[in-house]
């Protein structure tokens, strides 16, 4: 059984329909990527899975349990964490406090997890007492990912983790994502940077105007001429 099964979800912003029957599955241990142009509904898909924007129709099954009606704040204890689009760190709190908030629902010792985050992002350790909003964009991105990891999620939703990062950092962030995956976290990755995303992903889905138009193993998508033309910047 897949870790996450999204079945035919429809989501709306007011009267505007953003998702028109999206279905996808993520198996345990995979890195699955969701690609598509601006406004295709990638962020909305993650928000719908996460309960921030509950779908009006359709099912979301996680770990064998239907969760489409579950409020967002209960998702973390089910095992879903997200590093959202735009980072959404708590900018007036320190780096340490942000990481603590990531483990908000936990009552056990979190030092080990904090060390793990610092191993992945040594930069954050140097800035542990800094107010998060005063950090650079890249550092804030690291913090957003680190915060999501603090809950020890089974499934990590990543929305454009490479946004606004220098090319060297993009490479590094993707290495880290692979590392996180190897350490046992399943990942659903949304990326503009489709090229790199398809390199580290097992499988990929292509989203267009709120619907899945293509899905295949990542290797296959990379060779698909239509995908190459539309998303990999090749003519």
């Amino acid at each position: 059984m897949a870790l996450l099964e999204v079945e035919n979800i429809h989501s709306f912003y007011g009267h505007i329909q953003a998702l028109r029957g999206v279905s996808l599955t993520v198996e345990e241990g995979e890195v699955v990527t969701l690609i598509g142009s601006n406004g295709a509904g990638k962020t909305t898909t993650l928000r719908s899975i996460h309960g921030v924007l509950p779908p009006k129709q359709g099912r979301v099954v996680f770990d064998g349990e239907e969760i489409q009606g579950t409020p967002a704040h209960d998702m973390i204890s089910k095992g879903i964490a997200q590093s959202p689009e735009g980072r959404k760190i708590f900018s007036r709190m320190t780096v340490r406090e942000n990481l603590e908030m990531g483990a908000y629902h936990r009552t056990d010792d979190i030092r080990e997890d904090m060390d793990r985050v610092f191993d992945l992002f040594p930069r954050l350790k140097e800035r542990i007492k800094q107010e998060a909003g005063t950090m650079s964009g890249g550092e804030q991105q690291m913090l957003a990912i680190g915060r999501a990891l603090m809950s020890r999620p089974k499934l990590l939703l990543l929305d454009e983790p490479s946004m606004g990062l220098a090319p060297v950092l993009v490479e590094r962030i993707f290495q880290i994502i692979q590392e996180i995956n190897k350490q046992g976290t399943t990942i659903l990755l949304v990326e503009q940077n489709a090229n790199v995303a398809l390199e580290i992903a097992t499988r990929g889905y292509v989203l267009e105007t709120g619907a899945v138009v293509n899905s295949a193993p990542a290797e296959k998508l990379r060779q698909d001429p239509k995908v190459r033309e539309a998303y990999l910047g090749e003519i």
Partner: protein
Amino acid sequence: MTTGDATKTLSGALLEGLRHSSWQSRLAVAVVALMLALLLVQAVQDPGQFTSQLLIGLTNGAIIALIALGYTLVYGIIELINFAHGDNFMIGSFVGLTVLSGTLFGLGLFAPISGDSGTIIKVAGVLIALVVAMAACGLLNVGIERIAYKPLRNSPRLAVLITAIGMSFILQNVGLVWKGPAQVPFPDLISSANILPGDAIVFRWKDLFVLAVTIPLLVGLSYFIKNTKQGKAMRAVAQDKEAAAMVGINVNRTISVTFLLGGILAGASGVMYGLFNGITVFNVGFTQGLYAFTAAVLGGIGNLSGAVVGGLLIGIIGSMADQYVGVRWTSIVIFAVLVLVLVFRPTGLLGDRSATQGGGSGRA
């Protein structure tokens, strides 16, 4: 929560004003300088009276600051100016009065506590009145949020604002029905005798009482918000509700806790106001609420230290104006200062990021 900070910011604002040096700002600086000079003259002429006035201002300011915190806490978390907050304070004074008169829920529980009661009875009575009023106002505030504001969480802000004004009217009318339109006397339980020897400087037991209740409340609040899990959750929700939900914080519950805290402080303030001034009235929440709201704006709404600094400043400016300008002019002086500050610092004395900064621990 230092006044030093406030003075620094204030003088900084004035200097900044000078540098802009339009004729308005020069005029403003001249007015402030003149006012300060006049105060200085008074201080030199009769230092005893000046100091006494300062202390009275501090006490009044403490009562205002507690209400102001309620405005600022709520604004920090849902960006709503809770117009019903002042009336919640009024209800607090009524609840306290009812407890002291021994007739809670129409039951004659015990004989009314008055100035003639024994010391232990007085102390116990005051403490019980405080605790009951704090609990009642806290729960009332939570109830108001649930019933009136929560359903409008995603409506335009104006809708919630108008609802808040409506809640204010409702509470005032509850007060009117409860205790009538006239001022109601509070039992005189705390001595107005001077603590200090001689009568050069007056600092009464009443003043001490207010500070003795306010300071622990402020320390407690500050600790709660800085260090407890729930307090951190409040700051997180104030900064980003969606992100807060994603890390597992129940946003609705956190908002309720914020209203609870604001109500608790208003309840304490209401009882102290009654005991301090010897009276309360159904519309006392309007005037005190206005001062407190002004204090919150003056300090920088959303900023907790700002609310305290603003409250103390308004208390002190008010008592100085009472003494040296004339009671009739007090409100004018207070609002003139508010306007003056907002001209130079639209975000208030300590509010550096205004709306976006949320109800953080401020710069305490």
